[in-house]
């Protein structure tokens, strides 16, 4: 029977197949924009607000884009791991694999005039804002073709024209900066918002509350997004926070707890948040997510958590697997087609790395450029 392979991949009673599929064996990948409504894994947990609906509107094209984008990010981070071990990437390297659904879901609900600012775990966020694999790998390897011309490094990616303001190394600093971006958007009367991302570790920073207080007083269109991966470097959230309900920490500021491994839930929450802040001032989103790697490449990530915990999350909650199941369950593509996409991505990533590896380092004269704007130049001490 033509639909027999469908029933074998259907794993969740909430997934409903598209009606009357034609012969699925020689059908191309669906790029249809026919609306599809899918329920999030779990309901949203609100704090001082009405939560959005669990039913998320999407379409086949969007789901496949989610798959492709997240798979690209996953492949990129794993490749960065190898490059770091090969000593082609130096210094700090903080990897985002496991957390892909957060930046991908966010992008689906906003535009490039909305701003995103995050901390140092920024490779995938930058890619989501329109960065290319080549400029990422070039920057990581300190080449002049990098997005910061090799002068920033892993923690300092920026793309101002697409509303990405970095890339910040000091924990927590990005939150007041993000509130400043929102201030400017309001000052200019744009109908745009800013998402300031931070981790469960940064959530305890005083400057966050200072900036939140001002943002609430001045009604700034700022969305604070706590990417709660449950560990601040090696310290578990219960050892660092008296109250790990980060979505409630705003007190008078409303909040929402979201399953950060479910890209559709993230999309719904960000859409809801954007509408909310344009009318009512700040909101906090807590994304319940997980990082497979340690805090950075210097951290094995297994001295403060068990390997069982890590593999458990990978099996039960992996964001890419979740979308794979959705795509297959709704017969939007075959397993082989998805595997082909992954092969294609692997090739793209390998090509970008190969190209970056042979690209030149910055000219020595670049040491003294960009200290100031307007070519004032830097004072050259006697060399």
């Amino acid at each position, binding site marked *: 029977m033509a639909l027999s392979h469908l029933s074998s991949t259907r794993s969740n009673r909430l997934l409903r197949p598209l009606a009357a599929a034609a012969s699925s064996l020689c059908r191309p990948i669906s790029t249809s924009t026919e609306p599809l409504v899918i329920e999030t894994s779990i309901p949203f947990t609100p704090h001082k607000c009405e939560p959005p609906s669990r039913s998320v509107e999407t379409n086949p094209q969007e789901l496949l884009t989610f798959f492709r984008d997240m798979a690209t990010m996953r492949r990129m981070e794993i490749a960065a791991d190898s490059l770091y071990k090969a000593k082609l990437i130096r210094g700090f390297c903080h990897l985002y694999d496991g957390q892909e659904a957060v930046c991908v879901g966010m992008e689906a609900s906003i535009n490039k005039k909305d*701003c995103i*600012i995050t901390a140092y775990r920024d490779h995938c966020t930058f890619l989501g804002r329109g960065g290319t694999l080549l400029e990422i790998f070039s920057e990581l390897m300190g080449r002049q073709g990098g997005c*910061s*011309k*090799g*002068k*920033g490094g892993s923690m*300092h990616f*920026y*793309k*101002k024209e697409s509303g990405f*303001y*970095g*890339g*910040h*190394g*000091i924990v927590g*600093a990005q*939150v*007041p*900066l*993000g*509130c*400043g*971006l*929102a*201030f*400017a*958007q309001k*000052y*200019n009367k744009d109908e745009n918002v800013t998402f300031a991302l931070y981790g469960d570790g940064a959530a305890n920073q*005083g*400057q966050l*509350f*200072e*900036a939140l*207080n*001002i*943002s609430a*007083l*001045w009604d700034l269109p700022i969305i604070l997004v706590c990417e709660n991966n449950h560990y601040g470097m090696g310290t578990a959230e219960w050892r660092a926070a008296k109250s790990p309900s980060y979505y409630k920490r705003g007190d008078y500021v409303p909040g929402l707890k979201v399953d950060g491994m479910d890209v559709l839930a993230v999309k719904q929450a960000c859409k809801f948040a954007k509408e909310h802040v344009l009318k009512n001032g700040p909101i906090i989103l807590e994304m319940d997510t997980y990082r497979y790697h340690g805090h950075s490449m210097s951290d094995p990530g297994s001295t403060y958590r068990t390997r069982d915990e890590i593999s458990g999350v990978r099996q039960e909650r992996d964001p890419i697997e979740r979308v794979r199941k959705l795509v297959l369950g709704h017969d939007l593509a075959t397993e082989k087609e998805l595997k082909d996409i992954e092969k294609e991505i692997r090739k793209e990533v390998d090509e970008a790395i190969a190209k970056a590896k042979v690209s030149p380092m910055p000219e020595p004269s670049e040491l003294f*450029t*960009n*200290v*100031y*704007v*307007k*070519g*004032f130049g*830097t*004072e050259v001490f*006697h060399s």
Partner: protein
Amino acid sequence: MWGIVGQRACRHGSSAMSLQVTRPVIHALRSFSTAAKEMTVRDALNSAIDEEMSADPKVFLMGEEVGEYQGAYKITKGLLEKYGPDRVLDTPITEAGFTGIGVGAAYHGLKPIVEFMTFNFSMQAIDHIINSAAKSNYMSAGQISVPIVFRGPNGAAAGVGAQHSQCYAPWFASCPGLKVLAPYSSEDARGLMKAAIRDPDPVVFLENELLYGESFPVSAEVLDSSFCLPIGKAKIEREGKDVTITAFSKMVGYALKAAEILSKEGISAEVINLRSIRPLDRATINNSVRKTNRLVTVEEGFPQHGIGAEICASVVEDSFEYLDAAIERIAGADVPMPYAANLERLAVPQVEDIVRAAKRTCYRSSSLAATA
């Protein structure tokens, strides 16, 4: 004697390289000095900020008490009424938070003026000044520029004790990516404030509380709304040929008084008003020392790693053969500022200290260690 070098800077920033027109030095004439208008430093700052806010809608002001209170030191008087609460913002007492917000607004293209009630409180926000503002243009290879001004009173006031009296010039001036200005007169205050606001880079603007009420003559040119001084250029306040005295902010006044006393004793001192701590006008300082062969540096702050230390190094590196005497550094005492009036007086440089140091460089007295 006032020599005024006013330079019409171009619209964007005041880099010496982009000057269109250079005016020659005008020596004060008797008719000039009687006709000159006087202006306090306070009014000079207020009018400069007012004019720049009027000219550019992206400029806005934030800080504690800048709005309804009219400014803790009345520098921002009248601005809330004129520009409204969208552009003149009273902040809570949360320096780290509001400084970060200011820097973020600058990232997006606005031009904030962030006031610290005194620079002692800037330490609460120093991460944003250094790591978020100063370094961003470099780390982003030019993508993220930060056209922000951090301003407020710096250094010792009167009787305010150890936590409210520190000079932060050396700390900020050591950081590449920042520009650090220190006005003395009303002309300095107007010209440098305008330059700072127009400048596309982060500028730390170090005022002095005790100078706010002092009046200085200002020419019609200084009063013009397009008046601007170049950043990175020192001013020779008084020409001389025997010894160079460098100073900034309030100490310029002390140095000029010292020069007056020295002239009666036959020593002609050249007083340089630094105006710009970063970039430091090494050319003017070195040219002066090559002429006089002797140098006294004066500052109010702590001596170790201070501004004088940098000037000494620069002169030793550039003009060693021209020195006829060891360089003298006059600085505040190497102690936290005491409260008792007599101890406070001992902790900051006095005119006599500058005179003694200048004489030492001229071999007029035995060499004494320059202690408080």
